[in-house]
C-alpha cells in the first residue's frame, strides 16, 4: 500500500513548500517518525532511498562470502548455523528492499542497479573468504561492526526503516556470537588452528574499520543525515566504539590486533589510520572480489529466470481455471 499515492498531483507553490518543510523539520526535531504517506523533502527521500537500497544490497551480496563455505563447514552443527545466518541475510535484504519501496522506488529498479554494477554496497563484501576462520572473523568483526552501525538506526526518523532495523538487530546478535564462538574454538585449538584465526583477524581487521565509512572530515552526508535523524552518531564515533569493544575481545582470544599504533589512553583504544586509498579503490569497483560478486549475482538472477516465469505461468493458469469453474 505504501507504494501508492506517492505522486504529487499538483506542483506546490513556494509558500506551501516552505510551510511543509518547516512542519517536517519540526516533526523530525521532536523525534516524531516520518511515515510513507507524509510529506517529506525530496532530498530526505533521495538520501533514504540511497541508504536503504545500499543497505539492502549489502545484505544480499553479503550472502556470497559465507555462502562460499556452506558446503565445507566443518560439522553439521556449523553448517546448520551458517545456513541459518545466510538465510537471515536474505531476509534482511528483503525487509530493507520493502522499506525502500515505501519511498517510491520499485524493487526491479533496485535489483537492476545492483546487477548493472551502478549501485553501491558495503566494501567489506569484496574481500575473499580464504579459510574457515574467515567465517569466524566475519561473524565476530563484520557483524559486530554492522550491529554497531545498525542499533542507532532503530531510532531513525523514517518509520519503515526503523522498524526493519529493529527486526534485523534482534536477529543479528546470534550472527556475532556464532562468529566469536568459531574464533574461540580455533584460538584454543592446535597451533595451526590458532594461526588460522590470527591470519583471519589480520586480513579482516582493517576492512572492518572501513565499514563505518570515510573519516568525518571527508564524509559528505554526515551533517544533513544527523540533522534529519537518519544517523545518530558520526562515522568516527562509531568506529571508536567498535575498536573499544573489540580490542579486549581479541585479547581474550589471545590474538594480536594488526595495528602497531594501537594503545590504550585510559579511556579509549587509540588506533592507526586505515588505508583510505584501499577503501576508495574497493568501493569504486576495484577490490579483490568486486567482479566475482557481481558475476555471481547476475548468474543467480539469470539462472532464476525460469523459476520466476514458471511462478507467473502457474498463477495465471490457476486464475484462469478458477474463472472457468
Amino acid at each position: 500500500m505504501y507504494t501508492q499515492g506517492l505522486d504529487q498531483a499538483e506542483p506546490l507553490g513556494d509558500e506551501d513548500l516552505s510551510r511543509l518543510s518547516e512542519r517536517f523539520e519540526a516533526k523530525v526535531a521532536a523525534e516524531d517518525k516520518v511515515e510513507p504517506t507524509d510529506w517529506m523533502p525530496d532530498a530526505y527521500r533521495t538520501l533514504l532511498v540511497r541508504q536503504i537500497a545500499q543497505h539492502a544490497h549489502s545484505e544480499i551480496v553479503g550472502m556470497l562470502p559465507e555462502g562460499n563455505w556452506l558446503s565445507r563447514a566443518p560439522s553439521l552443527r556449523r553448517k546448520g548455523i551458517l545456513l541459518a545466518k545466510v538465510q537471515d541475510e536474505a531476509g534482511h535484504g528483503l525487509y530493507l528492499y520493502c522499506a525502500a519501496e515505501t519511498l517510491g522506488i520499485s524493487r526491479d529498479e533496485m535489483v537492476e542497479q545492483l546487477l548493472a554494477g551502478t549501485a553501491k554496497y558495503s566494501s567489506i563484501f569484496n574481500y575473499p573468504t580464504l579459510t574457515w576462520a574467515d567465517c569466524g572473523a566475519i561473524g565476530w568483526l563484520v557483524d559486530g561492526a554492522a550491529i554497531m552501525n545498525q542499533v542507532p538506526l532503530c531510532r531513525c526518523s523514517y518509520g519503515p526503516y526503523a522498524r526493519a532495523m529493529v527486526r534485523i538487530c534482534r536477529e543479528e546478535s546470534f550472527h556475532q556470537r556464532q562468529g566469536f564462538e568459531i574464533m574461540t574454538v580455533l584460538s584454543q585449538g592446535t597451533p595451526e588452528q590458532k594461526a588460522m584465526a590470527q591470519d583471519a583477524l589480520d586480513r579482516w581487521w582493517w576492512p572492518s574499520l572501513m565499514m563505518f565509512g570515510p573519516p568525518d572530515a571527508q564524509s559528505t552526508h554526515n551533517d544533513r543525515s544527523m540533522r534529519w535523524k537518519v544517523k545518530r552518531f558520526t562515522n568516527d564515533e562509531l568506529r571508536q566504539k567498535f575498536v573499544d569493544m573489540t580490542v579486549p575481545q581479541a585479547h581474550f582470544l589471545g590474538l594480536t590486533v594488526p595495528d602497531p599504533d594501537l594503545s590504550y589512553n585510559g579511556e579509549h583504544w587509540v588506533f592507526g589510520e586505515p588505508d583510505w586509498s584501499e577503501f576508495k579503490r574497493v568501493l569504486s569497483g576495484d577490490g579483490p572480489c568486486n567482479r566475482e560478486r557481481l558475476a555471481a549475482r547476475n548468474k543467480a538472477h539469470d539462472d532464476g529466470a525460469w523459476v520466476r516465469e514458471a511462478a507467473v505461468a502457474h498463477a495465471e493458469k490457476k486464475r484462469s481455471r478458477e474463472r472457468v469453474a
Partner: protein
Amino acid sequence: MNASPEPGQRSTWPLWEVFVRSRSGLAHQHVGSLHAVDAEMAIANARDVYTRRGEGASLWVVPATSIVASDPDDKESFFGLDEEFRHPSHYVVPDGVVGI
C-alpha cells in the same frame, strides 16, 4: 497483475502486506510486506521471511491494493477530536475516595 508480464521479470508481481499472530490470544500485527504472484506463494514466502524463529502461530497476507487507508492529509481534522472528557484523567477524584 497485468495480463502479460515480461518473461522472468517480476515488476508486475503484486505487493502483499503481512500480518503475524505471534501466539493465540493476541491480534494479528502488521510486520511488513513482500511480492508474490499469488496468495499461496505470499503465505509461503511470508513464513520464510517473517517467521524464521517461530514468531508466528498464524499468518495473514492481504493484497496491498485491497487496503483502504485514511487520508494522511486529513489527519488533523479526521482524528483531532478535542474531547478530553473521554479520558479518565479528565476527572478529579476527591481525596480519600478509593475504588473509582
